[in-house]
């Protein structure tokens, strides 16, 4: 029974991190920027929702408001940081350093405004427990499962069925050709990061319902998400989502044999295995 409970917990959190992985993978596949600051956008989402709720905004509106805030932040990072760097023909290393700098700024502004301690994020229905044949599921977990799957399916539909999604995939597969056919890669980059930031806000709000808010709490989820993206194969959104679920399930099952402080070791071991045997990932495109 404990095994089944851990399995279910893993699948629920895995779906949430799957959304982080898919949004990161969309940015990475399109812009080729390793967007480390995405962890900061993820963290900000939770804090914005917390503040809006504290000011008496209804829950769905608080989520939408937080998503709007994240969208603005993501688009601003692209417009005021990545785009000028690209114009100056900065090296890849410099873009990474700038992204890390942006993450440090976001995290520490949050820490200065709120506090660097863990902030309880409690909503009455979220901590209510539903029992399904011996399995205990909290309201937060049910919401996480439903919204994460919806976000994932929505992203897939968007990328494959809409005109903007097709334009994004065209830019991702060949930026040069997209440039000369007037698909305007630069405008697409802003759009992609804006969309990814709005989407990553969803797990950014839902995961802290269980674990609480922490200004520096975005790095570990982002690490799991990037490992999932690499294991799944860059360019495959489905692969990224699937591997996020697999990694988090394995992390949870590892609780049977070792304490939770070491779960980062499990995540990293999976990464090392992929680096050694299949660095291109399982479902790499092209």
């Amino acid at each position: 029974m404990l095994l089944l409970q851990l399995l279910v917990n893993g699948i629920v959190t895995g779906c949430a991190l799957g959304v982080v992985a898919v949004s990161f993978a969309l940015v990475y596949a399109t812009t080729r920027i390793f967007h480390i600051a995405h962890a900061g956008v993820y963290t900000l989402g939770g804090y914005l929702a917390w503040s809006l709720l504290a000011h008496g905004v209804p829950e769905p509106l608080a989520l939408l408001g937080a998503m709007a805030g994240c969208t603005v932040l993501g688009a601003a990072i692209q417009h005021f940081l990545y785009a000028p760097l690209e114009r100056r023909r900065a090296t890849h290393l410099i873009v990474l350093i700038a992204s890390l700098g942006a993450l440090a700024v976001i995290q520490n502004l949050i820490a200065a405004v709120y506090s660097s301690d863990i902030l309880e994020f409690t909503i009455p229905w979220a901590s209510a427990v539903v029992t399904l044949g011996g399995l205990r599921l909290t309201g937060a977990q049910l919401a996480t499962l439903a919204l994460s799957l919806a976000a994932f399916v929505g992203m897939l539909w968007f990328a494959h069925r809409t005109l903007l999604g097709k334009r994004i995939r065209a830019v991702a597969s060949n930026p040069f050709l997209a440039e000369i056919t007037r698909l305007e890669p630069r405008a697409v980059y802003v759009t992609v990061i804006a969309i990814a930031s709005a989407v990553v806000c969803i797990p950014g709000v839902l995961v802290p319902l269980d674990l609480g808010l922490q200004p520096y709490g975005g790095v570990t989820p982002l690490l799991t998400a990037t490992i999932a993206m690499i294991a799944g194969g860059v360019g495959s959104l489905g692969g990224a989502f699937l591997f996020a679920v697999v990694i988090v399930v394995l992390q949870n099952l590892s609780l049977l044999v070792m304490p939770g402080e070491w779960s980062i070791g499990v995540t990293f071991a999976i990464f090392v295995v992929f680096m050694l045997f299949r660095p291109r990932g399982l479902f790499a495109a092209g």
Partner: protein
Amino acid sequence: MDYFYSYLILAEIYVLLGLSTNLLVGVVGIFSVSQAAVFGVGAYIVSDFLLSGTLSFLPALAVAAVACIVLNVLLTLPSLRVSGDYFVVTSFGIQLLATAVFTNWTGGTGGANGLPGVPPPDLFGFPLEETRQILGFTTVAAGLGCLAFWLAMRAPYGRLLKAIREDELAVAAAGKDVLRAKVSAAALAGAFAGVAGGVYATYMSFIDPSSFDLDASVLLLTMVVVGGARTLAGSIVGPFVLLALPQLLQLVAIPTTVAASARQLLYGVLLIAFAVFRPQGLAGERL
């Protein structure tokens, strides 16, 4: 005066770390946020040997240096096999894993409480207890590190490393051994970090995981970016400037609760500002 000496000692220890990070980030051109982990391993190895009394200071420092050479080469190996972006993941992963080990392996590291009472450094049985003596020792250590870095950079070996960063394929096509050059640079960087760790632990006489976490790695990266890549001057200027900045922050009345985040915020702003406006840093070459 003692306050100023302790600033100098710490800055000199960080010069060694700056050299180490500069070798990886500036010279070889890989993004690393895990140098504080290697620094920490050096510090814990020396502390454990001295606290248990099995080795005296210099042999312990030698063991730490060798261990950090091996560790740093192992950590850097993935960057030789996969593209630069994947190494970002390796680097973050190693740093978070190291923090988990430092915090949770209470047997070897004292866990979150750290290791108190590390004895002061000694040279051949002659303990260095006064601040001035330690300052002399760190000056010699940092000086030797700078000399090694300077000699390596002006030798054909240094030009080979710079050429690899510019165009690895062309260097390989010219018949040079790219792998050996990168591995030896990583080894040198590991030795610097290991020695710095040992000296840091014995000078502070207390170490805990907070000195070797992700924030510490970001600080090391900021030192290289602000000081400047690939030059000796950059590796020296960076640590001296960045360790002086928190003192300036104290002049502005910031409540102590946000002091730590204000400091990290400043490092983030510096990273962005230098990346956008001055990628060559104060005294270096373009990253």
